[in-house]
């Protein structure tokens, strides 16, 4: 479903992402974790085609990712890390806009929209301009816009930032059910408990390079038997001291 081969990105002389190889299967929820500035957003933007890789290729649903491939884009969705959407539209107008662009059937749109809007409790705010929304409300609106056309693959860049606990839980349950239906989710987050709870496989990236990739158990094995939680594993892989110790042990 999602294949990134030898993916690298340099900004000027600085390497943001270095030789990333990922393969995400159909019906899998893949969590892509890393500290701030580790290259998560750059990777997700390269996967979406928003940034051109310096090296490497991306395939989604078996096709090379290209922003001009309209049919492919109709099957995927993206929730950016900052919900900078058109502020001068109301929530209602934004959703109508997205539904029109994705050429949704009116009946399907009405039903799906109702389900998602009720789930995120945004029904009373759809008449308000997006620029007057709080960060969390914008996030909800973007997530609704990304989910309502039922994409086969969805990329979510830190989707739970600003969401209230109920919406967070609803999103978590929705994504879990969503992958069970055979869809694919690529998720970045700083909420390690979320990844631990719902991800099928986890990838930890640090300074642009993959440090570990696999199920939670596999990650535990890769970092030593005393590492129990994802937080332990994550900190072990992304703190300078531990990385040096681990690299030394491996060598």
């Amino acid at each position: 479903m999602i294949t990134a081969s030898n993916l690298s990105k340099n900004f000027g002389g600085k390497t943001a992402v270095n030789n990333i190889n990922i393969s995400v299967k159909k019906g899998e929820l893949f969590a892509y974790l890393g500290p701030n500035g580790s290259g998560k957003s750059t990777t997700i933007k390269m996967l979406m085609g928003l940034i051109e890789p310096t090296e490497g290729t991306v395939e989604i649903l078996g096709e090379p990712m290209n922003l001009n491939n309209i049919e492919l884009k109709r099957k995927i969705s993206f929730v950016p890390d900052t919900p900078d959407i058109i502020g001068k539209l109301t929530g209602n107008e934004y959703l109508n806009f997205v539904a029109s662009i994705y050429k949704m059937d009116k009946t399907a749109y009405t039903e799906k929209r109702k389900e998602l809007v009720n789930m995120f409790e945004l029904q009373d705010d759809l008449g308000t301009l997006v620029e007057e929304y709080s960060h969390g409300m914008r996030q909800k609106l973007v997530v609704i816009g990304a989910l309502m056309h039922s994409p086969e693959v969805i990329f979510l860049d830190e989707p739970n930032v600003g969401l209230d606990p109920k919406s967070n839980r609803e999103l978590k349950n929705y994504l879990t059910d969503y992958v069970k239906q055979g869809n694919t989710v690529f998720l970045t987050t700083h909420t390690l408990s979320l990844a631990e709870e719902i991800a099928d496989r986890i990838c930890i990236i640090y300074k642009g390079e993959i440090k570990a990739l696999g199920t939670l158990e596999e990650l535990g094995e890769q970092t030593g038997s005393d590492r129990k939680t994802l937080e332990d594993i994550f900190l072990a892989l992304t703190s300078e001291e531990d990385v040096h110790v681990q690299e030394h042990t491996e060598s």
Partner: protein
Amino acid sequence: MFKSILKVEAQSRLNYFKVLSTGKIILYLFLLLFILALIVPAVWMVVNLFLLNAEEVMIGKAAVLLTLFIIPVLSLFLVNGIIKEMFMDKNIDSYLVLPVTPKAVFSVKLFYQFTFKVLPIVLFISMAAGLTLAARYESPLLILSNILYFIFIGAVSTAFAYLIVFIVTKISSAKRVGEILTLAGGFASVLPYFIIMAGSQYLIGIIDFMPDVSFIFSGFLYKPEIVKYILLLIIFLAAAAALIWLVLNYVTDAFVKGTANTNRVQRKKPASAEVSSSISALLKKDISMTKRDFKEWSAVLPQYLFPFVFLYLLTSNPLIYGGEASSDDQVMISIAFAGSIMISLFAAAMNTARDARTYAFLKTMPVSGLDVAKAKYLYNLITIAPMYIFITIIIYFILDVPVTTLIYAVLVSVLLVMTAAPLGMLLGTMNPVVSRKNPAQRLDTAANVIISVTIFALIFLMGYMTQFTIEFDGEAFVLKHDTMLMVIGILIVLSILSYVLLLRKVGRKYDKGYNITYRD
């Protein structure tokens, strides 16, 4: 408490000026120079000349006119600052959680608004009036009474501004009100100059129309009578202080009790699910954004004044107008050519460059660049062409031309909008600029230069060509219908070519991606 907040606010304002960019410093200096060189001397001269020579009854009437003029202008000028500082500035919340009284916080805000926005204006006017009247009546006391009276007017304007803010924020959101009032404030700040320049010849008539209130002002603002002078001095001083005190208490109370509306405003239209075609959805998006963004209006509206500048230049300059080879028909056609090229190029470029803000969002959507370009083209036609037809009709009423010339001018304008808009759109994709602080600044220098050069080249060419559109029929100059029909035919071909070739190029630019400069 008051002192500490005052100090922090002063420091914050000082820091704002310390980090100003060179461009902004130059702009501010230019504005200051403009005010000092043109507005200040003009106002001073008018006040001076009038008060030195006018009959006494007219001085009182002039004070009424000045009062009626200052209150709305100053209020509009103040309103935008109030919205920004009291509704949209997070500092208020930060202050209110500190161990200070809300009154101290709002006193500081009010102090700055009054000291920096009201006082300079009322002091200038009162000094102009006071010094002149003091010289005329040989009494320096009049300087003080004039200062005090205009400070009172300043207090009334402040109260009035807060009243406007509290009323309008009940109807619409503070942000939207702020945008509308930025536009209104802009007009309000240039209004005095235009009134003085354009309306000075009618000034005496207008003053004479004002009610005679010399029973209040005589003895206080002019021709001093000591008892009345002292009494009114105390009354106006007390009234100004009372007004400020009332405003302060009301504002503090409104914010503390939450009656000041800082919440979101729900639109009246019910939320309903609607699906349309991609192009129609993109078009609706652009129209909604423009309709609601008053900053957008202030970026594009000045361009629509250019046809009137052309009209003025063409009809006021005897070298251009009134010669043997010119007529109103030619002027009308020239304005149709020059104005529509200029507006279409500039507005289309601005409208297209605006997409840079949401380019990444658009790119993730399953919509082709050509569809985006087509929607933008339609949007340009819908917004530019009717506006220009309206301007053409106004010019038709100003000039003495037959209806056929109006029809030709409208046809030429619409066809030129259709021809020039794709070119403007292409220029708008040339390295557009995204500036959150100054959203109207969205074309880079190269695009601006190219637009200017293109505009001048095309206007020159069209201006030259319009002379072939008229002929002398033995009595007067008339339009050559065969030439005009040929011009229209050529423009139809050009507009089709522009649509087919340039619009596709714009679509390809959307697909391929273009450089965007992020300023702040």
